[in-house]
């Protein structure tokens, strides 16, 4: 092993460059006094004494080549090679010699012979045996400002120059070599120390110079390459200009990924040139899938080559881009096929009885899911200490013996990951496969419940763990720098969209028997700083489940990543389990959310989503990356096997994805059947009722004018021949028509509903009271007896206030309908009446052509906009009411009044129809006695806002409607209809509004 690569190399040199070497050496040596065998000296070990050389030379009949070969063959049997340099010049002066060798740093990996070419004319500044250095003019040093502009599309600077020890340039590496040598120098992966083997005494440009390069890996080579490091980037002269591409093509690589790739390709080239091959590699596993190690390498190189092509072709690409984009989309049929393999075994899964603490009855397929998840989580528990097997992505290499012994050999082996180009001196043991997976059941199958069951079923044994002491969390081979100081926690972290926060909590509490599960929410103001400490405690203080949002994770990650180490908040803990709900949120691997989630530390990692692949295969990558499902969580690996083949319309990509998915995905659809051939879920038949509504005359007017307007614009586009290029605007026109059908506010009064919905419309009671008191003395302008009026106003307000703090009972009665004013308005004169009554009256006045006025005191004119709404909220007493509570402890509830500017809110035909339906189902019960739940959908969130206001104003009285609102709030984001409880039929009217009714 010790010298086997070397003789081979030397022989290679001699065979290939036999003519030059003999010629040149003879030429140089003959004028001097040296005997001819001296020509042999540069070809053999420098310490070889003259006599040996002379003997050798004679033995081979003055044949230089044969002599050299003979020498090296004999050397194989004499391993005790003494450290030195091939340097005739310094040979005589030992002090210089040591200096030269001492300056060499790094780990020796071998020598290569390179034929460079001379860049100078005239007498050679070097002789054979001279040590030379490689000089790399870094790209960012060269260009002047002007050059940078012009050189944007020009070829990358890969020039590597030879310089003498005095710093004089005399030659260059050939481009095929300098291509990767330059990268190695740039990335400071490798140090090169050259020795001139052969060189003409008088050089002309382009003359061959034969150089031996000794390669030493720098310590940096084995460090974690951090391509996101800004300093490093600027050092490499990377201009951020190219960062715009990923926005359009997410399959493209980021800057950092490109750098990683360049580094990787360079290292691979070096190893190839050195003839080093791995002594151990576990690629065989993946090779089974793809056949042959060569294929793996080829694919990597292909992908690299293709990228280069793309880079060089530059702007011309853009036309083809849209077509390419289409191909990248995955059709539904394809998707189904992808899941097929993963689904094949599903119906045969064992069922596992639900844990006792669950208060719900699991369906049989949910029990199957539980057993599957248990198996995934407990995988490799026993075989955790198998240090023997190498990580599937890493290859083991042996350091060749350094003939010069310049560096103390500390390590005998090094490890390289051919997919990332990462190198390490430490053994990379096979990481046990990811504990967790993708739960991708179709919506409505109860993923939340399944997750709940696993939370219950596989709980940390708290007492046991605390006795055993700290468990060392598994290290991640891809983040060697990751500190293992994170403390293990028995908590399950659930990350979900904000809108689902409450639902997860409620579902978990509802689904568990009392006091068996401690659920906490980590979000916004409820973030508790002491929580982090509690998370790490194993004595039961930590919550079993901690629910947080993507936003929270992101913000913690952002603040943490500034300090460069993820050590605070959620990131200081190694969770028992982390679950990502609606995980397609992280489908873009470049998004910060995606990165933040992947950075979470946990032993068990689950992904819950109904759509693991939304449009592109790459969507899946982010999930796989989060799961740390080796080897696929490595992007270059993924890119080489999936993205690139897929872009090339290679069907194999699908096979690969299937292979990736099979072990980690559990997906069932509603149409699947269990072992007995029954449908997994039996739903009552769906009933779709479409109700056609007529516009009111006003709505018709608005619609007509908008329609005419749209028509004109469309005709204009057509006439100008720009219909196709303006299709977005045309869609917008159509959308506006659809919106106006929902409610004119959506398109007409842009400002008004903002005011309706915003809190800024609210007026503080105290403020108003104060204003009134202040103006009492000043106000003399308005009609009859302003003083009295203001006194009255103050009285009204004070009465409201006293009701608010609970001193006075009883509601004020509307003067018009004689009912207690639930949704009352205050007129400017402070008279109060029902909102509806006042509006009716004002409408009537308007119809009669009269100005609006207060129905009670005739103070006017007033309009809808002058009205102040009194919004009464009953609420439980809280701390601020504690004082009042003490005096009137009988009262349990207090009433708050909020005043809000009225806005002339009007419903639309659709809203009216919706209200009618909701009122109909109000109070009705299903056969099981549960109240009916209704879910309202709309494509327009703005319309949902309007619906919310409407529902609140017109039917919100009992808790049923409040429930509707709560559900609506949570579910409105998920317009794709997550709601699919047990027994409901659906009615869908032309509003895109779904009413859920339960049939008897």
């Amino acid at each position, binding site marked *: 092993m010790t010298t086997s690569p070397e003789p081979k190399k030397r022989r290679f040199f001699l065979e290939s460059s036999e003519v030059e070497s003999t010629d040149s050496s003879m030429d140089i040596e003959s004028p001097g006094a040296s005997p001819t065998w001296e020509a042999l000296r540069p070809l053999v070990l420098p310490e070889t004494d003259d006599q040996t050389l002379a003997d050798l030379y004679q033995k081979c009949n003055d044949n230089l080549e044969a002599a050299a070969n003979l020498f090296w063959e004999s050397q194989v049997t004499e391993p005790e090679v003494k450290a030195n340099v091939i340097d005739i010049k310094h040979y005589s002066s030992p002090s210089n010699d040591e200096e030269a060798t001492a300056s060499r740093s790094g780990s020796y990996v071998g020598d290569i012979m390179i034929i460079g070419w001379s860049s100078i004319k005239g007498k050679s500044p070097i002789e054979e045996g001279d040590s030379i250095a490689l000089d790399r003019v870094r790209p960012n040093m060269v260009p002047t400002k002007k050059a940078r502009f012009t050189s944007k599309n020009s070829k990358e600077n890969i020039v590597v120059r030879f310089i003498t020890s005095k710093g004089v340039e005399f030659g260059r590496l050939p481009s095929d070599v300098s291509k990767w040598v330059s990268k190695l120098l740039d990335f400071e992966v490798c140090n090169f120390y050259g020795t001139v083997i052969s060189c003409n005494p008088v050089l002309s440009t382009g003359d061959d110079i034969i150089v031996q390069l000794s390669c030493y890996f720098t310590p940096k080579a084995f460090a974690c390459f951090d391509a996101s490091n800004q300093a490093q980037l600027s050092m490499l002269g990377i201009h951020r200009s190219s960062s715009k591409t990923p926005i359009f093509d997410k399959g493209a690589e980021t800057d950092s990924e490109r750098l990683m790739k360049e580094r990787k390709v360079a290292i691979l080239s070096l190893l190839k040139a050195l003839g080093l091959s791995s002594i151990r590699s576990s690629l065989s596993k993946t090779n089974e899938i793809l056949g042959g190690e060569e294929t793996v390498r080829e694919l990597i190189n292909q992908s690299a080559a293709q990228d280069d092509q793309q880079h060089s072709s530059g702007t011309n690409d853009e036309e083809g881009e849209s077509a390419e984009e289409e191909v990248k989309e995955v059709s539904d049929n394809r998707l189904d096929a992808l899941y097929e393999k993963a689904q094949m075994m599903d119906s045969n899964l064992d069922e596992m009885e639900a844990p006792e603490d669950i208060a719900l009855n699991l369906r049989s397929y949910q029990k199957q899911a539980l057993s599957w998840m248990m198996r995934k989580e407990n995988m490799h528990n026993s075989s955790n200490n198998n240090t023997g097997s190498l990580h599937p992505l890493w290859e083991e290499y042996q350091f060749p013996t350094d003939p010069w012994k310049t560096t103390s050999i500390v390590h005998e082996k090094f490890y390289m990951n051919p997919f990332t180009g990462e190198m390490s001196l430490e053994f990379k043991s096979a990481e046990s496969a990811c504990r967790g997976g993708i739960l991708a059941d179709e919506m409505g199958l109860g993923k939340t419940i399944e997750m709940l069951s696993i939370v219950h079923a596989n709980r940390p044994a708290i007492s046991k763990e605390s006795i055993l002491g700290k468990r060392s969390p598994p290290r991640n081979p891809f983040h060697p720098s990751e500190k293992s100081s994170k403390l293990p926690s028995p908590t399950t972290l659930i990350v979900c969209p904000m809108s689902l926060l409450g639902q997860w909590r409620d579902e978990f509490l509802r689904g568990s028997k009392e006091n068996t599960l401690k659920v906490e929410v980590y979000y916004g103001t409820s973030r508790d700083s002491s929580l982090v400490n509690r998370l790490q405690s194993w004595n039961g203080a930590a919550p079993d489940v901690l629910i947080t949002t993507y936003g929270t994770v992101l913000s913690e990650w952002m603040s943490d990543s500034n300090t460069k180490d993820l050590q605070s908040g959620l990131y200081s803990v190694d969770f028992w389990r982390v679950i990502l709900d609606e995980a397609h949120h992280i489908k873009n691997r470049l998004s910060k959310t995606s990165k933040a989630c992947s950075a979470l530390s946990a032993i068990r990692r689950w992904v819950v989503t109904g759509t693991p692949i939304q449009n592109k295969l790459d969507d899946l990558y982010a999930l796989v990356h989060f799961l740390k499902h080796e080897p696929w969580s490595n992007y270059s690996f993924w890119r080489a096997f999936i993205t690139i083949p897929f872009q090339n319309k290679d069907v194999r990509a699908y096979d690969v994805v299937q292979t990736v998915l099979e072990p980690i995905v559990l997906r069932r659809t509603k149409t699947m059947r269990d072992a007995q051939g029954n449908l997994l879920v039996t739903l009552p038949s769906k009933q779709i009722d479409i109700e056609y509504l007529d516009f009111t005359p006003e709505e018709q007017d608005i619609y007509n004018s908008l329609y005419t307007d749209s028509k004109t614009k469309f005709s204009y586009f057509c006439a100008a021949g720009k219909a196709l290029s303006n299709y977005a605007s045309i869609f917008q026109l159509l959308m506006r028509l659809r919106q106006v059908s929902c409610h004119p506010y959506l398109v007409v009064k842009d400002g008004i509903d903002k005011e309706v919905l915003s809190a800024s419309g609210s007026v503080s009671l105290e403020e108003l009271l104060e204003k009134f008191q202040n103006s009492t003395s000043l106000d003399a302008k308005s009609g009859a007896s302003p003083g009295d009026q203001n006194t009255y106003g103050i009285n009204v307000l004070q009465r409201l206030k006293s009701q608010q703090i609970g001193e006075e009972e009883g509601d004020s009665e509307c003067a*018009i*309908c*004689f009912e207690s004013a639930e949704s009352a308005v205050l007129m400017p004169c402070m008279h109060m009446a029902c909102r509806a009554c006042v509006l*009716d009256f004002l409408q*009537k006045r308007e119809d009669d052509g*009269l100005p609006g006025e207060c129905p009670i005191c005739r103070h006017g004119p007033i309009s809808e906009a002058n009205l102040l709404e009194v919004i009464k909220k009953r609420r439980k007493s809280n701390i601020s009411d504690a004082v009042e509570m003490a005096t009137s402890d009988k009262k349990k509830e207090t009433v708050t009044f909020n005043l809000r500017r009225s806005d002339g809110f009007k419903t639309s035909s659709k809203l009216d129809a919706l209200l009618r339906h909701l009122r109909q189902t109000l109070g009705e019960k299903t056969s099981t006695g549960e109240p009916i739940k209704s879910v309202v959908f709309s494509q327009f969130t703005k319309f949902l806002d309007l619906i919310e206001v409407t529902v609140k104003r017109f039917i919100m009285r009992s808790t049923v409607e409040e429930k509707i609102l709560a559900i609506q709030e949570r579910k409105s984001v998920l317009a794709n209809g997550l709601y699919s409880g047990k027994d409901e039929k659906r009615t869908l009217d032309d509003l895109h509004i779904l009413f859920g009714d339960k049939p008897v």
Partner: protein
Amino acid sequence: MSLPKRIIKETERLIAEPAPGISATPHEDNLRYFDVIIAGPGQSPFEGGVFKLELFLPEDYPMAPPKVRFLTKIYHPNIDKLGRICLDILKDKWSPALQIRTVLLSVQALLSAPNPDDPLANDVAQHWKEDEKDAINTARDWTRLYAQN
């Protein structure tokens, strides 16, 4: 047609606490139709008389004013031969905040204070303006004649 809550409440209150000198009773077959009796106010030419009126609450009450008409003949510048009443709150000055009770009180007040400047029965108004004393006597006669059985 169900009766609005307001009408029910008003009726209840009218019966529970009637205004002095006024009574209003709904018809059993039509709760929107009231038989009203107003006693002639003291110190007026109608003193001692008992006047029958009919009051009808239209469909859009209380947005529209009630319809009120004297059934008993009365000599008054603001009330015509058919018993129709000229009173602003029964027309353009109506407000939904007004009630049957307030309307009837207004009518009662109108009896106390005839307003010949805004006449409905022109001849009576003329009479009132030219010779108020004689007009008041005629009113007394009429009250005795028609409103005292």
